[in-house]
């Protein structure tokens, strides 16, 4: 279980508080107007932002003070998920050992996860040689390899077209099943939320509300969300 225990962050005029918990293995969309603090919520879990008050716990363990790389968390950003100067295999291999001194079995694992996301044989290529969808697959292969209990997506597939995005969400769903990860996904697209996430956290007016069932929330949104969805 992922808990936000009386969390509060203030940055100038911006403030966000969160007091909620997410069940293990849940798939949760994070929705709210621009600037409401959706990315902030994810950054708190990812360790890129320290709360002014409150604790973040995963399965009872306090992770508030851990640096990003030591957290049981994988994160996908909107872009820059791959290092352009490293090969596909190196980018994925970083998930096993950040210094890339991989053993032979580890190399096989890398090839194996690449095959699982449909990219067999691309080990030696660079991200620039791949399409946008293929690049997302490489990043997902690394997520699969790391198999962390929490997976954060900050509009990770926002740049992809609708068909490709649906494909990535399906792949993401398989990976989340396989690793039994809890998924928090920031999205601007209510369709994504309905398709992928049974539950939704609404971030609005400086508060991240506890997760509720996605369908009813979107069918009958509160006023602020209604204005945002249009």
């Amino acid at each position, binding site marked *: 279980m992922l808990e936000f225990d009386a969390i509060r962050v203030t940055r100038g005029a911006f403030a966000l508080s969160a007091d909620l918990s997410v069940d293990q293995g849940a798939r949760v969309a994070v929705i709210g107007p621009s600037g409401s603090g959706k990315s902030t919520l994810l950054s708190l879990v*990812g*360790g*890129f932002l320290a709360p002014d008050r409150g604790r973040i716990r995963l399965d009872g363990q306090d992770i508030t003070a851990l*640096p*990003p*790389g*030591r957290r049981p*968390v*994988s*994160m996908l*950003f909107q872009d*820059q*998920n791959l*290092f352009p*100067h*490293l090969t596909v295999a*190196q980018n994925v291999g*970083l*998930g096993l050992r*950040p*210094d*890339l001194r991989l053993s032979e079995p580890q190399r096989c694992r890398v090839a194996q996860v690449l095959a699982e996301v449909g990219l067999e044989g691309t080990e030696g290529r660079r991200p620039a040689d791949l399409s946008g969808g293929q690049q997302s697959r490489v990043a997902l292969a690394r997520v699969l390899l790391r198999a962390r209990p929490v997976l954060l997506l900050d509009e990770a597939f926002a740049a992809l077209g609708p068909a490709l995005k649906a494909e990535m969400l399906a792949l993401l769903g398989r990976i989340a099943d396989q690793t039994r990860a809890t998924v928090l996904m920031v999205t601007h697209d209510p369709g994504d939320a309905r398709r992928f996430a049974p539950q939704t956290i609404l971030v609005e007016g400086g508060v991240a509300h506890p997760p509720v069932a996605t369908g009813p929330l979107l069918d009958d949104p509160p006023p602020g969300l209604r204005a945002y969805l249009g």
Partner: protein
Amino acid sequence: MAAGLRGLTAPEAGGAVAATGLALLVGGTLAAVAWAAQGLGGLGPWDWRAVWFTIWQAALSATLSAVCAIPVARALARRRFPGRGILVTLLGAPFILPVIVAIMGLIAVFGRSGAVNDALRLLGLPEVSIYGWQGVILAHVFFNLPLSVRLILQGWQAIPAERFRLAEGLGFGPRDVARHLERPMLRAVLPGVWLAVFLVCLTSFTVALALGGGPRATTVELAIYQAFRFDFDLGRAASLGLIQVVLCVAAMGLARWIAIPAAFGAGLDAAHRPAAPGGWRRGSDALVITAAAGFLIWPMAAVTARGLPRIPALPPEVWEATLRSVVMALISALLALILSLLLALSLARGRLRWIETAGMLPLIASPLVLGTGLFILLRPWVAPQAMALPVTVGVNAIMALPFGLRALIPAARTLHGDYGRLADSLDLRGLARLRLLTVPRLARPLGFAGGLAAALAMGDLGVITLFAADRPTLPLQLFQLMNSYRMDDAAACAVLLMAISFGLFWIFDKGGRLA
């Protein structure tokens, strides 16, 4: 300190330590200088004359460079001709050209037996001397005219192409273009250009050492050297050092109101160009470009023609000095790179702003001031002979820092913005991060900064002169050959030094581009 460092990442802590060390080193040497100076009472009229000369020669050099650069930059902005790209690249070369080499070149052309005086004699006109204040200013213009041209050319190319198209559409003549487009740009750019040159000339040492001297052409830096070497009057040297610091701080104060443009980098190959008027302006542009190119190339060609054939006959001590200088330059460059990378990486995280100030500290302390201070600090423990080479290496590394930081800070910020979070989330730390992320992504600015540092250290003839020179560097060897009138050997030495300086820069820069 330990408590202050808690909560920082490794590069931040490294940067903080480096910046603190740098601040202590510069601050400590300045404090030593201030303490040894014991006020300014020890200064005589001769010294105040040096202060006055320093200021007016810097002002005149800056004014001449900026004014002469305007027509050259305009001609280069609006004309296209074969070799233009090479010429523009060449304009960047004086930045890493060893000063003493350029002086050899200027002597070859403007000296007593140079072509200019030959021509004057033929015409029955009085000779001109390159020694004295006019020589100092000539050398300063030689170095800073190209720099000014590049800076003003950047200004020209920063005028959007649409403006020039609009001007053409409105039927503007060259006068109208000058009035509505060019003069406003020059008003914005020229103060910064002037100040950049003024700052360089304010700490001029090598030029004054070789061409100046005497009551009418001694800079403060040269006066420090003379007080130190000839009178061994440490107190007076330190008082002069204080004055030099005050001059630099005052000039830096001006920079608070006037933005100094970066002296290098930035592509100068914009696709558009201003309208190129025909008629007499065509001829005058050609003349201006030829004159500027000649002024730059002729001295270098003259010294090369004289020195190149003599290189095989150079005595063995020159080759020893060469090896010594190359090793010293490489160590300096490595030190400068490590320091500036540490500072830039921690600055990129954006939490320790004061680090940038520490990195710019070397701008207020000239090499001779640092050398004097280090000498005072180290004297109780180390023999001056043993100090010479390490102090030179260290001072050169520190002097290269501001340039290294200028190249690395923007690149490190971009790197942090683009890949900092990804690297953090993958737990990419320490040496693995350096090897897999930092060095590959920063290879170009690292190569460039390393090249600059190596070339500047290779050609430097500054702080080494303070110490007795039984083991000279190549520039010092060259200076000694000049002083004993072995001009053929000196010219050969100059060619060698020039080739190695450019070679070092080229190897580093190319290495960074290929990585």
